[in-house]
């Protein structure tokens, strides 16, 4: 493992103007020339900026009007039904068209407080845009994501979404300041609850701030968006790890209900020899580096092997390439068709000239103190298992070695089982919190939960939908009213 001291960053909540959140970071490249076998050549500042520039640049007004005019204003529109937060898409697009951009943003944010980040990070081709009726005519669907961004961006810094009613005297604590909690907190403010969010990280936003690829969403934009939530009177306490800095007992005593939006943990280990060598790191740690440091301060090998076949693996290979690594491998046990990454994400990685090694598994990482090479073995797909998925089997004697400087593990994220089990009465299934599908209430009636810790890892928009649902569930529980599932179906 890398020296943990070198990872210690001191935050002052300042941004360096390029979107990353570094206040001060060691120059690990100069500091530890022997930490990696070979580091990637440094790029010019302009080149880094270009490589990590918005993958979906914003629309100009005239582009927005032209694109918006393609929307048919469907009735009971399928795009609404395919959005987990049920944003009234035709309505907000029409509002852009009439010049009522504030109204458009309000339509969006009333349904989805994270409308700004969702507009940039949602896999729209399987959500709203995938459902757009224009697809049936083999036409390009309306670019809903970009229009959503157009509407929200223009008023985000000034809009006060609603005037919260007088305090109703009840208090709710939310653990984790990711999309699930932020959404839940917003909805609770509509009913006059006093809400406090606790988060272990220096900055709020959860994976929005620390996990999502920088070319989709910069940390600074994620944090900017959260100001919208704060303006509604939501208190966010950062640097508080619940379980250590604050105890569950304290929270239970001081709050009427508790929402768990803790997300998932780091990536799973590979379980192969050599994982402890310098230069073998976990995907989330790596991505977090790209989000909180200037790009030229991120430690990156010249030849990088990334293990995994999901969207996280794609984010890692593209980031490694954009940071200047000259050879980037993506190694996955199954074939391309079986990879869980969205097709458009794989296409994105192909454009970045990533070397895909399908049907191969890492066997051991070799090196003296630091990663020097990775030994892999070829696999073939065996018969389908109980879940219907064909599990890969190693082909003995097919071992091969890749000369690499870094190995990044991008397997599934681990569950925060230990913390969750410390809550009395909590029921888990495969590490996921079991909740009532209508109310998001857990087996312990005081606790509600949503987001990745419930669905095992979804999208930001799913976490937002859960947050809304949970708020309705909490309100029903505390105010004794029937839960009003205002527009969610996640």
């Amino acid at each position, binding site marked *: 493992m890398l020296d943990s001291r070198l990872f210690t960053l001191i935050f002052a909540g300042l941004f360096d103007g390029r979107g990353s959140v570094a206040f001060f970071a060691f120059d690990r490249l100069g500091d530890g020339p022997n930490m990696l076998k070979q580091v990637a050549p440094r790029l010019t500042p302009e080149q880094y900026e270009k490589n990590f520039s918005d993958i979906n640049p914003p629309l100009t007004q005239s582009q927005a009007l032209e694109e918006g005019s393609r929307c048919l*204003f469907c*009735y009971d529109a*399928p795009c609404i*039904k*395919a959005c987990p937060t049920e944003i009234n898409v035709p309505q907000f697009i029409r509002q852009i068209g009439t010049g009522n951009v504030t109204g458009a943003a309000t339509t969006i944010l009333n349904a989805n407080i994270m409308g700004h980040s969702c507009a940039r990070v949602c896999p729209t081709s399987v*959500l709203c845009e*995938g459902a757009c009726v224009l697809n049936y005519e083999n036409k390009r669907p309306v670019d809903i994501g970009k229009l959503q961004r157009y509407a929200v961006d223009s008023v985000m810094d000034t809009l006060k979404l609603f005037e919260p009613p007088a305090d109703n005297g009840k208090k709710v604590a939310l653990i984790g300041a990711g999309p699930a909690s932020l959404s839940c907190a917003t909805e609770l403010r509509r009913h006059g609850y006093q809400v406090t969010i606790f988060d272990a990280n220096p900055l709020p936003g959860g994976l929005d701030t620390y996990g999502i690829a920088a070319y989709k969403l910069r940390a600074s934009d994620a944090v900017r968006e959260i100001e919208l939530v704060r303006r509604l009177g939501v208190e966010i306490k950062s640097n508080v790890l619940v379980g250590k800095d604050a105890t569950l007992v304290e929270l239970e005593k001081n709050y009427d209900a508790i929402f768990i939006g803790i997300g998932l943990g780091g990536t799973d280990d590979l379980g192969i020899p050599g994982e402890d060598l310098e230069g073998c790191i976990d995907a989330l740690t790596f991505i977090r580096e790209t989000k909180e440091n200037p790009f030229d301060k991120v430690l990156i090998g010249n030849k990088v092997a990334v293990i995994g076949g999901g969207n996280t693996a794609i984010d890692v290979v593209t980031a490694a390439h954009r940071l200047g690594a000259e050879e980037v491998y993506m190694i996955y046990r199954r074939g391309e068709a079986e990879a869980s990454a969205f097709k458009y994400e794989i296409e994105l990685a192909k454009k970045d000239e990533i070397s895909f090694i399908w049907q191969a598994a890492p066997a051991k990482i070799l090196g003296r103190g630091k990663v020097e090479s990775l030994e892999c073995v070829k696999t073939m797909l065996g018969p389908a298992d109980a879940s219907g998925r064909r599990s890969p089997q190693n082909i003995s004697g097919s071992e091969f070695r890749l000369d690499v400087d870094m190995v990044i593990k991008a397997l599934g994220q681990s569950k925060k089982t230990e913390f969750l089990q410390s809550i009395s009465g909590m029921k888990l299934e495969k590490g996921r919190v079991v909740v009532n599908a209508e109310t998001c209430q857990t087996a312990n009636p005081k606790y509600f939960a949503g987001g990745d810790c419930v669905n095992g890892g979804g999208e930001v928009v799913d976490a937002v939908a859960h947050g809304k649902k949970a708020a309705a569930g909490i309100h029903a529980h505390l105010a004794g009213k029937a839960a009003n599932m205002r527009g969610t179906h996640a």
Partner: protein
Amino acid sequence: MPDISVNFCGVKSPNPFWLGSGPPANTAYQVMRAFDAGWGGAVWKTIGEPIMNVSSRYGSIDYKNERMIGLNNIELISDRPIETNFTEITEVKKKYPKNVVVASLMVESKQTTWHEIVKRTNDSGADLIELNFGCPHGMSERGMGAAVGQVPEYAGMITAWVKEVAKIPVIVKLTPNVTDIAHMAATVNAAGADAVSLINTINSLVGVDLDTWVPRPIVGGASSHGGYCGPAVKPIALNMVASVSHHPKVNIPISGIGGIGNWRDAVEFMLLGSTSVQVCTAAMHYGFRIVEDMAEGLNNYLAEKGMQSAMELVGKSVNKVKDWGDLNLNYKVIAKIDPEKCIGCNLCYIACEDGAHQCITAAPRPFGDLREGTPAKHMPQIKEDHCVGCNLCALVCPVPQCITMQEIDTGRPPMNWRQLQESRGKNPTCSMDELLAKGASTH
């Protein structure tokens, strides 16, 4: 190859496409460029005592991505000296003897003044005269333009004065800002006009600026009503042309104007009785080059229809415009959705539900995204026994040919409203439905 030339009042034009009187036909330079591009004729920007214009002068209506679907102007007639215009007309006719040049005229309502300018026109080489009795703004405040065209007696009188000295055919250009344009056409016909042209622009205020609260176009913090034209006015113009064609006391050729931008528009005007057509806004919007497709499109259309000459088109649809009372009440169509083409937008449903007769059903759409598999196409259904056949759904459906109106055999002989009234008189005890069931032939 069909012949697209037309004969208008004995004047041959290489094709029916003329530039209307307006900015595109302001100078010899422009008119010659237009003839080079392929225009058959041009009606010169109205000639009269030179005026002064204001700035700005135009306002427009945009619709979604389309600019200028309606144009409004507060411009007056030519701002160039009378003599310059006539010298240029002579020059153009010399260089382009086969193209039609029409001199558009407007002077104060005095017999001697009119005589003077018509005589000058006779000598210019112009093929035709057009009397501008239509300009709805500015000139009308000075007793010209629409001020003449809105009073049948004045229009007839001035037409007669002009005819006293004119040696070439005289077209009277009519204003649409009247109650009955066909009556006006009949009046000038009786006064000796050789042809009419219509429509001139329609009185309009094109919009109000929401920040300054000044209507557009803005002239130093104020505006004035203007004349409306462009694609938006075409249906109004078509109806006016048809009504003039129908009028029993109009027997002179028509030059159709209003929102024409392509050969299809032109053919529609011709079918309703125009021998030539005039274009202003479209040429202002896109330039003279649009005529290339107009000529080629017309040519191909005639060939497809097996017609020899564009003249065969003139008036073909006039008799198909009937009084409402002559329409068959026993004819019935209902909407049919093609499930292959339907994209499930539900626009037909909501249009019929809120805006028509509640004859379409649509189940609530289920929730779900593509991560849960491809959702089944969600399609509304027509309640066929309820559908009144109004067309609304077919008009709102965004997919071409997806909703078609299909004829239903009602088993009833034709009967129109007039016949129904007669039949009611003869059979006072029968219900309407019984009478309709019998049809017109039985009483």
